[in-house]
């Protein structure tokens, strides 16, 4: 086993090594209509205590990326390539049982729809306690205690009573908080949050974002925050990865990326946020539609919609570090110092 570097090495999280490093991940769905390359060469890293925003439009592969990390890709999907290094250990190679030990324990996930993630016929305490007991050998009472504490932590008043409730007795925002509490039960090192506030109101969203921020800061948990809402990421994340058609097209710190995006797609995305536009004036929009993942054109997938596309774009651009700490998958990026100089 030692032969495969970093495979089963006992995890000693040094401050320098990132919590998660995804390298060239490829997850494909083998459907009747053909192979859907939902994730096709995704790479990014998330450091300890950092929040990484994963943005991109619907269908660009954000959720599948999240599921790939947790090893929850179902038939007909399969991880066909790449590495998912969690503290250096490649999750893609783990056996199901080993993966199960990690899930909910050291890596947790929060799903998009707060109405659907909790089992409607089980009480909240059951759903929380079973999660505790799945990974630690404690008594039921201790497990309940932990559940109660965690519920309190996410700001649910009188957790004792609430534990005995069924999910339908909660509002959407509270359910999402329960889901977050479940994710936090084992103080995971990594949380994948898949659009956890998209279905919620602005006011409730704000409450949850506040909760999350506090937690990351306190526990040093790394977080991948999946969303298509740039404005949320702007306020929350440290780093940003932008996905387009199954690939990360840009990756870098939030500040730089949002202010001076490199990739034309990122540029277009930011441009279409209404508040970035003058009131009443036409919004800047990206022309055209997202291509089908079934038959992507060769080369840069964005080129048919890109204002800067050229012949060269018919080749595949690599995800290169174009500026320090900032990588993009483009031959003709924006905001390059050279261009600025020119």
């Amino acid at each position, binding site marked *: 086993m030692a032969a495969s570097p970093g495979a089963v090495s006992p995890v000693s999280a040094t401050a320098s090594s990132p919590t998660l490093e995804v390298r060239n991940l490829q997850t494909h769905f083998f459907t009747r209509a053909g192979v859907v390359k939902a994730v096709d060469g995704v790479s990014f890293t998330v450091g300890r205590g950092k929040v990484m925003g994963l943005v991109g439009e619907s269908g660009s592969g954000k959720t599948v990326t999240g599921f790939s990390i947790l090893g929850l890709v179902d038939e007909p999907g399969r991880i066909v390539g790449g590495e998912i290094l969690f503290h250096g250990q490649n999750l893609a190679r783990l056996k199901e049982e080993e993966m199960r030990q990690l899930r909910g324990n050291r890596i947790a996930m929060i799903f998009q*729809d707060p109405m659907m993630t909790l089992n*409607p016929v089980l009480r909240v305490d059951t759903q929380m306690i079973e*999660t505790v007991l799945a990974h630690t050998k404690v008594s039921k009472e201790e497990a309940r205690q932990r559940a109660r504490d965690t519920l309190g932590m996410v700001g649910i008043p009188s957790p004792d009573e609430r534990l005995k409730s069924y999910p339908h007795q909660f509002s959407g925002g509270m359910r999402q908080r329960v889901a977050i509490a479940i994710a936090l039960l084992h103080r995971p090192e990594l949380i994948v949050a898949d659009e956890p506030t998209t279905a919620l109101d602005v006011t409730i969203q704000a409450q949850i974002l506040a909760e999350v921020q506090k937690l990351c800061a306190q526990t040093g948990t790394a977080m991948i925050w999946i969303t298509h809402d740039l404005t949320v990421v702007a306020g929350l994340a440290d780093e940003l990865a932008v996905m387009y058609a199954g690939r990360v097209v840009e990756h870098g710190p939030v500040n730089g990326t949002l202010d001076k995006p490199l990739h034309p797609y990122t540029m277009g995305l930011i441009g279409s946020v209404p508040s970035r536009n003058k009131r009443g004036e036409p919004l800047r929009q990206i022309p055209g539609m997202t291509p089908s993942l079934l038959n992507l054109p060769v080369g840069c997938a964005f080129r048919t919609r890109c204002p800067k596309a050229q012949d060269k774009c018919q080749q595949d651009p690599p995800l290169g570090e174009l500026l320090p700490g900032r990588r993009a998958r483009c031959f003709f990026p924006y905001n390059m110092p050279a261009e600025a100089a020119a």
Partner: protein
Amino acid sequence: MSVYLLRRLLQSVLVMLAMSVIVFVGVFAIGDPVEILISPDADQMERERAIKALGLDLPLWMQYLSFLGNALRGDLGRSFVFNEPALQLILQRMPATLELALGATIMALIIGLPLGLYAGLKPKSPLSSTIMAGSILGFSLPTFWVGLMLIMVFAVQLGWLPSTGRGPTVEVLGMRWSFLTWDGLRHLAMPALNLALFKISLVIRLTRAGVRETMLMDYVKFARAKGLSPARVTYVHVFKNILIPVVTVVGLELGSTIAFSVVTESVFAWPGMGKLIIDSINVLDRPVIVAYLMMIVLMFITINLLVDLAYSALDPRVRLENK
């Protein structure tokens, strides 16, 4: 809750009233009971006497009103044939039918749930296809035919089980039950299986469909994301959810099981209500037919109510109004 019960009660009364009218008119339309009951040696005078004795000389609406009047006092009339209170006749035979129907239901659950679960969890495996194709047999083969086959194989050829009839009974709660003795169970086995066949298929299908749908739900994936063992995901998260439709339908089917026991009871000479009703229809014994149908409707309504209550107990989302 009280409103809910009250509403159900009112509805039941209406339904039973409607039922009694339909049956009265229906039986009247089929034919003349005296024609059937009377001895061939009789003459016209005897016939007239019999008509009078059975109260059939009055116009139908008067017969109905007097029935209604008696029914309000708890008297559903006396059987033309047996000269016993119709209700008593039915109550005597009810345990036999109930144990048959319950036996069949339990059998259906014991056999159907595991098979359905397997077929739902592994929809592509050859065994699942076999289970599903096999389950079609459950409702394609006519009950009476399967019944006779069972008798031929297990009683006539192999001699393992008694061919027909009900075994020795034990009196509990003032009723005679046969499932408490070994011989009684042996007698029960074949008819119950015969009756269960359709329900086994039903349970398999419901379970499979339920499992397949539930497996796609986000909360199942979330349960896996929590790191639960596959067994816990299946047996707690999935199973409890599919139990709801299964229990509902199986409960509701109990009513039709009792109705379908007509066929099974006549094939296996099982002395239950089903046989009674067929015999009564054959001789147009109207008081028994009416009483039987009233009982069936009452039973059905009760079962429906119980199912609804069970449903609300199983599925916390459903609350009978007004908490």
